[in-house]
């Protein structure tokens, strides 16, 4: 047995030696010849008969070789070798095809990896499919702290008492967790910094099934009474990157100046139930008063601030849970209603009857950010798909053009006895090689592209952000498989042309390709021109959008303006000490050399933020059911002057307005016109928040409207009051107008703040211009990628066009020769070629323009100040196409013009 196996192993590698086979066949023939001679033939005849009887010796040899076990491998290797040789014979073609495939694979995998993270990836928790995100519909009164993502009928923030009732009285969930995200000041080893902090329910980690990497996670007993649980769990990334994985369990760190004991580090990969939120520490919700000293949320039914997620009990369906939870919710709302001031039937309807609890599958987590990135990423995805389509068409047409010029090669192979199968295998091998090379190059591109894109998207932000540069291997696998299949299919396309060719004819002509395949190639090129025009138009629209947004007049000068935030609460100041230290910080900065002005507000400008609410204006009778919300920023005395918001009438705030003087307000023109008809009429009137008499202030001035939320949105009616006269204290955003270079100014600002108190944390110091740019990130990303894809598409279209022109010109060498022999001039010949290009390009452009106008409608929401049919963009796009068409026609046209008639007529 063993020797047999050994002999088979030996055969597998070595096979039988050719000489042995030859000798054996030789012996056979010899023996046959002897036999024939024995029958009386002469030697010559005997040899001849023996040879006839045996048949083709070479064939027999070949067949013996084919019986070898490694034959399949061997023949595959040979195909690959032929394929490789075939590809290297035409390196430019190969490079272009491989590059095309690589770009398609690379772009697709990169963008899809991000899209997948944003839209499809489940939270890294146990059994995420059982998670349910809660939101509610119905009226509410009081204070709601939202980080976005809520809409009418889908309020994602709950009060803490409501959360506790839902958690303790439900029957459908095995657990319900709540969390609220904010910022906190941390002091660790005498180093202070502002970090993201999640206030979470005690059961948060256990219900989600997130274990501790070190120490322990929070448990239900960490959520007992307000202020009684000074413990913290660290986020793994924060622990790793900022604390260098130091032993932390049992150690104390200051959070907003109060000591907290670190009990553990959460498992790596977990951040929050809210996708895109990246908290650095987690503290029990009962510590809210320490984290946000200006608020007292824990016993307040009218403060809506916690995001709530539940885990369904085993065996309970979403519909069952919905029914039982809504019954409970109605009971709870009814109890709550009895405590409200307004007991009118209308209020009852709004609060109880219209109240509803929404249960939504929450495997991916709730995310306000997801909606922000969804549209841009989908647009980018659309562009990537266009590029891939182009790449596919490009490679197909390249392969076809190449196949056409290889007719002779294949004719010779057929003539030498190659079977269809063998030719097919070689073509497949070439396609496979192209695909593999493209895939390898594409995959090599991906990590760099991912990093680049993420870096670009996070430029200017605090450093941490939601996307990770991990490549999704499923996406990669999918793309590679699709590309391989596609390239194999294309490689077969030429085979159809050569299938059983009329040998003699092909050899005679020395060219394959029929008018049919030429039409196909023309279609390919027309498609490419169309695709690239689409992408160029998209790029043009987005670039114009970005430049419009950048040049939008915000109403105040955005240059030479530095921004940072400062929250004394994070440094452990008691609420009463906040306003004085903020005033000291303002004074310290104002005293710096080179500073023209400094102002502060609690309502950041052009950062997609808003602090708004309704106001009461004595003497103004609102129409019934009027809901008129106004922006309510608290500002410093010099804020309006520092930003340069022009005064219309009255006066600015000045030094005589202090914490103890009469309360004053300045409103903008929109506000004044709405309530008083004209700016002048507003002066001297009073304005206050409903039911809050302490907020009553006298209007002393009216200023111009300026953009506030973002450069995209229009100005809001605004009521500026002084932070020093406000009911509560809060962190402020500082604006410093300076002549200095931003870096130098930043350093002196930091020094000045440290001079006030070293514990104060200067947060997110940047320039207003960078701030706006950061705010325009989605638009900038789309513009950048659209431009890149547009360029890429144009290059691809140019290559495709060149390919077909070079080929068709070569085909027409004889025709051109005849024309020239008959007296056509070179210019006529050039015109002939250019005409062909212009017909092709013109047709493609004409067909594409209406499609482009329709397609760009889909992205209209992302455009600003530019119509989807913007003539400049289209003219530019067409001009680019013309230039590319002209350039790619130039070489073939020149070659055609230099045709020597005498020689052309003699070819073939």
């Amino acid at each position, binding site marked *: *047995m063993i020797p*047999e*196996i050994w*002999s*088979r192993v030996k*055969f597998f590698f070595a096979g*039988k030696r050719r000489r*042995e*086979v030859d*000798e*054996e*066949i030789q*012996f*056979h023939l*010899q*023996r*046959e010849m*002897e*036999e024939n001679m024995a029958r009386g033939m002469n030697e010559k005849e005997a040899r001849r008969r023996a040879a*006839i*009887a*045996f*048949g*083709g010796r070479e*064939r*027999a040899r070949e*067949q*013996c070789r*084919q*019986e*070898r*076990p490694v034959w399949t491998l061997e023949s595959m290797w040979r195909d690959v070798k032929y394929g490789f040789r075939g590809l290297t014979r035409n390196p430019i073609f190969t490079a272009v095809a491989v590059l095309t495939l690589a770009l398609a694979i690379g772009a697709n995998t990169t963008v899809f990896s991000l899209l997948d993270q944003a839209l499809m990836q489940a939270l890294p928790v146990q059994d995420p499919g059982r998670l349910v995100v809660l939101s509610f519909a119905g009226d509410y009164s009081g204070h709601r702290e939202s980080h976005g993502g809520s809409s009418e009928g889908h309020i994602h923030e709950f009060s803490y008492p409501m959360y506790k009732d839902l958690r303790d009285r439900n029957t459908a969930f095995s657990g319900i967790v709540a969390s609220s995200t904010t910022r906190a000041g941390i002091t660790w080893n005498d180093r202070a910094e502002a970090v993201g902090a999640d206030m979470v329910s005690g059961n948060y980690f256990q219900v989600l099934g997130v274990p501790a990497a070190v120490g322990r996670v929070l448990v239900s007993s960490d959520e007992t009474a307000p202020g009684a649980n000074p413990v913290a769990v660290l986020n793994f990334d924060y622990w790793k990157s900022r604390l260098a994985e130091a032993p932390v369990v049992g150690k104390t760190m200051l959070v907003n100046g109060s000591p907290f004991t670190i009990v553990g580090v959460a498992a790596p990969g977990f951040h929050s139930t809210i996708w895109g939120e990246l908290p650095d520490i987690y503290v029990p919700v009962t510590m809210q008063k320490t984290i946000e000293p200006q608020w007292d949320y824990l016993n307040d039914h009218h403060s809506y601030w916690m995001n709530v997620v539940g885990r369904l009990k085993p065996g309970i369906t979403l519909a069952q849970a919905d029914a039982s939870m809504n019954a409970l919710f109605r009971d709870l709302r009814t109890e709550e209603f009895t405590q409200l001031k307004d007991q009118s039937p209308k209020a009852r309807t709004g609060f109880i009857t219209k109240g509803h609890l929404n249960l939504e599958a929450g495997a991916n987590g709730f995310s306000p950010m997801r909606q922000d990135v969804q549209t841009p990423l989908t647009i980018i995805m659309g562009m990537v798909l266009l590029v891939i389509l182009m790449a596919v068409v490009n490679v197909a047409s390249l392969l076809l053009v190449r196949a056409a010029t290889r007719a002779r090669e294949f004719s010779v192979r057929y003539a030498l006895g190659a079977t269809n199968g063998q030719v097919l295998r070689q073509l497949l091998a070439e396609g496979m090689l192209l695909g593999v090379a493209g895939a390898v190059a594409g995959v090599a591109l991906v990590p760099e592209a991912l990093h680049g894109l993420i870096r670009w998207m996070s430029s200017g932000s605090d450093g941490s952000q939601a996307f990770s540069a991990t490549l999704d291997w499923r996406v990669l696998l999918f793309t590679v498989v699709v590309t391989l299949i596609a390239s194999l299919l294309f490689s077969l396309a030429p085979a159809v042309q050569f299938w059983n060719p009329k040998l003699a004819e092909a050899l005679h002509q020395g060219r394959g390709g029929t008018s049919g395949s030429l039409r196909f190639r023309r279609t390919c090129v027309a498609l490419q021109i169309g695709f690239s025009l689409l992408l160029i138009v998209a790029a043009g629209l987005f670039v114009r959008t970005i430049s419009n947004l950048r040049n939008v007049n915000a109403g105040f000068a955005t240059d030479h303006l530095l921004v940072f935030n400062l929250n004394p609460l994070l440094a452990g100041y008691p609420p009463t000490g906040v306003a004085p230290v903020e005033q000291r910080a303002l004074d310290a900065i104002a005293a710096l050399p080179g500073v023209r002005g400094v102002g502060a507000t609690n309502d950041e400008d052009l950062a997609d933020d808003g602090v708004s609410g309704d106001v009461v204006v004595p003497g103004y009778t609102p129409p019934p059911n009027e809901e008129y919300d106004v922006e309510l920023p608290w500002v410093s005395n010099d804020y309006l002057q520092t930003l340069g918001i022009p005064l219309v009438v009255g006066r600015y705030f000045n030094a005589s307005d202090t914490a103890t003087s009469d309360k004053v307000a300045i409103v903008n023109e929109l506000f004044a016109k709405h309530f008083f008809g004209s700016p002048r009429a507003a002066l001297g009137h009073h304005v206050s928040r409903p039911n809050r008499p302490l907020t009553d202030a006298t209007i002393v001035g009216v200023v111009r409207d300026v953009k506030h939320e973002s450069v995209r949105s229009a100005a809001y009616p605004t009521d500026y009051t002084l932070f020093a006269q406000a009911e509560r204290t809060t962190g402020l955003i500082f604006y410093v107008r300076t002549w200095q270079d931003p870096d130098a100014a930043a350093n002196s600002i930091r020094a000045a703040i440290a001079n006030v108190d070293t514990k104060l944390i200067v947060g997110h110091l940047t320039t207003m211009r960078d701030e706006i740019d950061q705010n325009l990130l989605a638009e900038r990303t789309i513009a950048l990628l659209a431009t890149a894809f547009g360029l890429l598409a144009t290059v691809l279209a140019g290559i495709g066009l060149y390919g077909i022109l070079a080929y068709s010109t070569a085909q027409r060498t004889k025709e051109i020769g005849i024309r020239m022999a008959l007296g056509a001039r070179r210019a006529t010949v050039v015109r002939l070629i250019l005409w062909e290009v212009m017909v092709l390009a013109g047709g493609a452009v004409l067909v594409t323009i209406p499609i482009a106008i329709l397609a760009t409608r889909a992205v209209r929401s992302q455009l600003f100040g530019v119509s989807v049919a913007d003539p400049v963009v289209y003219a530019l796009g067409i001009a680019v196409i013309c230039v590319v068409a002209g350039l790619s026609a130039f070489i073939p046209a020149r070659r055609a013009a230099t045709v020597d008639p005498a020689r052309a007529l003699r070819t073939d």
Partner: protein
Amino acid sequence: MPPSSDLLQGTLDMLILKSIVLRPQHGWAIAQRIQQISRDVLQIGQGSLYPALHRLEYRGWIRAQWGASENNRRARYYSLTAAGRKQLEAELQNWERLTGAVNLVLKASF
């Protein structure tokens, strides 16, 4: 030359194994033997004999050794291995079953 009867797929292998069951033979002798015994009905296309021999050898059913021929020349002699013997038995049984079945059908009076 009369056209050689088409052999059923796999039948050639069986015939080769059978023809060397008693003693080792070289290729030419195998072809001759099959032809003689079948009274010239089965003419082995010699082009296919050697690939078949190689195939059987790679499968480990036969073993080849160089030896001296009847007229004292070097020739490759093929002999059955244990596995080859087993294979031949299996194929014979199979063949009997098949021909028996075919005969039943053909001889049945419809």
